[in-house]
């Protein structure tokens, strides 16, 4: 977060987000691995009294003294381990703290990303230096430790959400997830629904299972589901081969450099007795073949930093780690314990060709420090999970993307930056990647919006973040997906990349209440017990006389799944299908007249989009207007897809909704 506030335009929009007492009244609850409270990011200088409505606790434990740990910034710290311990046995307190204390680092990273106080001169071993600050530095934070060495269990997560809502959190940030499952079986979805019903915004990570299709977690429409993109910052490390060719990779290595003249360079697959020696798995490298040399390893199976450790333990002098097709050109930097760099698939293939060209190949690695202004940015991270929504195809997920690659934020005091047991380095900040990192960016931004618009519902805040998101670079080209090198689709980025200065004044919002979601459950044909599981406070039954449809849920984006028509011979016919969606927008700006424009692009067919009415006139703030959208498309082969966009604009505001088309 030494770069993301600038990247998100927060430095240019101080007037839009006054750091007032409003912001200080907002509490962000972070469900994660706990907190390292001694970090400067939790400094409470300048904070007033804890908000009157706060009911939370800072629990005492052997290594957690509330008097020292909590303050006017970190106002809550609790842990939930009963489910974990019932499944895996008592916590081994020699290995992890039975307390809110974070022995992992992940929770300290996410909580400081969302709300960390400004810390000047922050860096990781000199990399990414600057002032680190959370997205909402004036918000308060409460941490709920639910994740332990063996994982995070739903009974603990549900207990923590329950506590966080009771405590008085306004925003919940969950950088965790499970598989795609029906909402009434998903404890995060159940907890989030009832939190939402009480006005709490719930932001969750989309998952790191990309770039495969339908790999998302946290699919419920009342959750804000966040994918990950890059910043305009990089950490170049150049591979210089003995043949004179150079390749650019990334690294956060900060120790003694390699000689500037190339040294022997070998392929791990030729320095092993294992059939998977190319992956540099533990115990697979032959020391006599790698000692004093740079080793080319390939990505996959075991963690990147562990591969470096394997090379180091075998006596290697350095490592070039090459992406394969699974990761393409995505470059994620690591603070390896030996000189090492990660290169993309194309460079990796060329380097591999060179290292296999003879017995006397050589190389060196030159570390380039921190580079700012990298373009294009953002690009969608290959690891970021992708749609379509495997539970409800009519709801587009992810909702949006935010920075999640090479993010600097606070870290634990008990683990090194690689997290490896052998890493004895201790750092105040660490640089890591994942949708876990993008989620708290959005949580912090939601806190900012809540501070400016305390009366907005969770759905309105989510809508503002989504409809103001951007999908193009300033030059007009579409945001790219690093996994393909092509323009990202709505299944990759949802509504686009978050743009907080625009989100604060979105013009129109697509609002939703808990009642709207009850209709949504009826549209999904949920049974009364299933509805009661999600919405236990309601004695609700679907009305058999009422027409329910998922397409009526007032969502800020559109996912339009067409069924492929088949003829008697099983081939596609030339029939067309029309699907109608209903939406209602609420004017949260001044009186204005909005006009609709649409675009659509589908290979192999033409889609007709009709918006009725195409002009909406608002004479007062708070007024609501409804419209319908008809999508008429030919039958295309199953697996076909396309994208489009519906934009309402009054000339000042751009209220954009992505449209994703699929044929199944």
């Amino acid at each position: 977060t030494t770069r993301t506030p600038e990247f998100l335009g927060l430095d240019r929009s101080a007037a839009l987000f006054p750091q007032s007492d409003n912001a200080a009244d907002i509490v962000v609850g972070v469900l994660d691995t706990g907190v390292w409270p001694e970090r400067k990011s939790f400094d409470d200088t300048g904070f007033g009294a804890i908000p009157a409505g706060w009911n939370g606790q800072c629990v005492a434990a052997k290594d957690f003294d509330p008097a020292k740990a909590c303050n006017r910034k970190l106002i809550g710290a609790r842990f939930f381990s009963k489910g974990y311990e019932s499944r895996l046995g008592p916590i081994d307190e020699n290995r992890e703290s039975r307390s809110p204390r974070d022995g992992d680092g992940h929770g300290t990273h996410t909580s400081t990303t969302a709300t960390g106080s400004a810390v000047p001169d922050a860096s990781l071993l000199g990399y990414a230096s600057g002032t680190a600050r959370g997205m909402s530095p004036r918000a308060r934070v409460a941490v709920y430790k639910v994740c332990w060495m063996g994982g995070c269990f739903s009974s603990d997560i549900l207990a923590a959400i329950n506590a966080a809502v009771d405590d008085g959190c306004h925003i919940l940030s969950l950088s965790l997830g499970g598989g795609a499952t029906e909402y009434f079986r998903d404890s995060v979805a159940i907890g989030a629904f009832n939190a939402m019903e009480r006005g709490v915004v719930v932001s969750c990570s989309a998952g790191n299972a990309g770039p495969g299709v339908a790999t998302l977690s946290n699919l419920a429409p009342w959750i804000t589901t966040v994918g990950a993109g890059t910043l305009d910052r990089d950490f170049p490390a150049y591979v210089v081969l003995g043949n004179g060719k150079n390749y650019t990779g990334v690294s956060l290595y900060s120790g003694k450099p390699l000689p500037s003249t190339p040294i022997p360079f070998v392929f791990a697959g030729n320095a092993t007795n294992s059939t998977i020696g190319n992956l540099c798995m533990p115990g697979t490298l032959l020391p006599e073949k790698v000692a004093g040399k740079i080793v080319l390893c390939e990505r996959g199976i075991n963690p990147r930093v562990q591969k470096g450790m394997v090379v180091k333990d075998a006596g290697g002098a350095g490592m070039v780690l090459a992406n394969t097709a699974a990761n393409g050109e995505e470059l994620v930097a690591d603070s390896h314990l030996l000189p090492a760099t990660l290169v993309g698939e194309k460079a990796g293939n060329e380097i591999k060709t060179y290292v296999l060209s003879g017995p006397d190949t050589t190389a060196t690695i030159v570390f380039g420090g921190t580079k700012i202004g990298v373009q294009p940015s953002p690009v969608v991270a290959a690891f970021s999970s992708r749609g379509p929504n495997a539970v409800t195809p009519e709801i587009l997920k992810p909702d949006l993307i935010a920075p999640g690659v090479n993010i600097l934020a606070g870290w634990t005091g008990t683990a090194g930056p690689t997290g490896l047991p052998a890493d004895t380095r201790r750092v105040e900040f660490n640089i890591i990647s994942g949708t876990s990192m993008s989620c708290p960016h959005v949580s912090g931004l939601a806190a900012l919006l809540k501070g400016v618009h305390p009366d907005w519902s969770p759905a309105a805040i989510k809508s503002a973040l989504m409809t103001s998101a951007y999908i193009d670079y300033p030059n007009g080209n579409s945001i790219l997906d690093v996994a393909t090198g092509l323009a990202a689709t709505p299944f990759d980025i949802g509504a686009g990349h978050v743009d907080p200065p625009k989100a604060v004044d979105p013009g129109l919002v697509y609002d939703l209440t808990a009642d709207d979601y009850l209709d949504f459950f009826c549209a999904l044909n949920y049974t009364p017990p299933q509805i009661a599981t999600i919405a236990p406070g309601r004695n609700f039954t679907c009305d058999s006389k009422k027409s329910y449809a998922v397409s009526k849920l007032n969502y800020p984006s559109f996912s339009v799944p067409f069924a492929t028509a088949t003829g008697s011979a099983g081939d596609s016919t030339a029939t067309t299908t029309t699907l109608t969606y209903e939406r209602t927008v609420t004017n949260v700006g001044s009186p204005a007249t909005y006009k609709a424009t649409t675009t659509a692009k589908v290979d192999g067919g033409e889609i007709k989009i009709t918006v009725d009415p195409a002009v909406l006139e608002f004479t007062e703030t708070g007024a609501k207007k409804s419209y319908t959208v008809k999508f008429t498309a030919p039958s295309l082969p199953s697996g076909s897809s396309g994208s489009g966009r519906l934009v309402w604009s009054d000339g000042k505001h751009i209220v954009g909704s992505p449209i994703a088309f699929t044929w199944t």
Partner: protein
Amino acid sequence: AAAVPTSYIIHMAKSQMPARFAEHSHWYDASLRSVSDSAELLYTYDTVAHGFSAKLTPAEARALSRQHGVVAVLPDIRYELH
């Protein structure tokens, strides 16, 4: 495997609490005790869910799912950090 206890989340229909119980937690406990004398209650949920979690054998979980007021008995699922 049928006898090995594991944790479950039991969702209850709060409105169906029999009149003889003064508090929901007493009802939850009685429901649990009706299928097991020894089952360990982990949490009660009152705000974002209505019910409780407990360590049960699969057979006890099935028996509990047939109790009055129980709307769902869900296995405790492991989630992962992203």
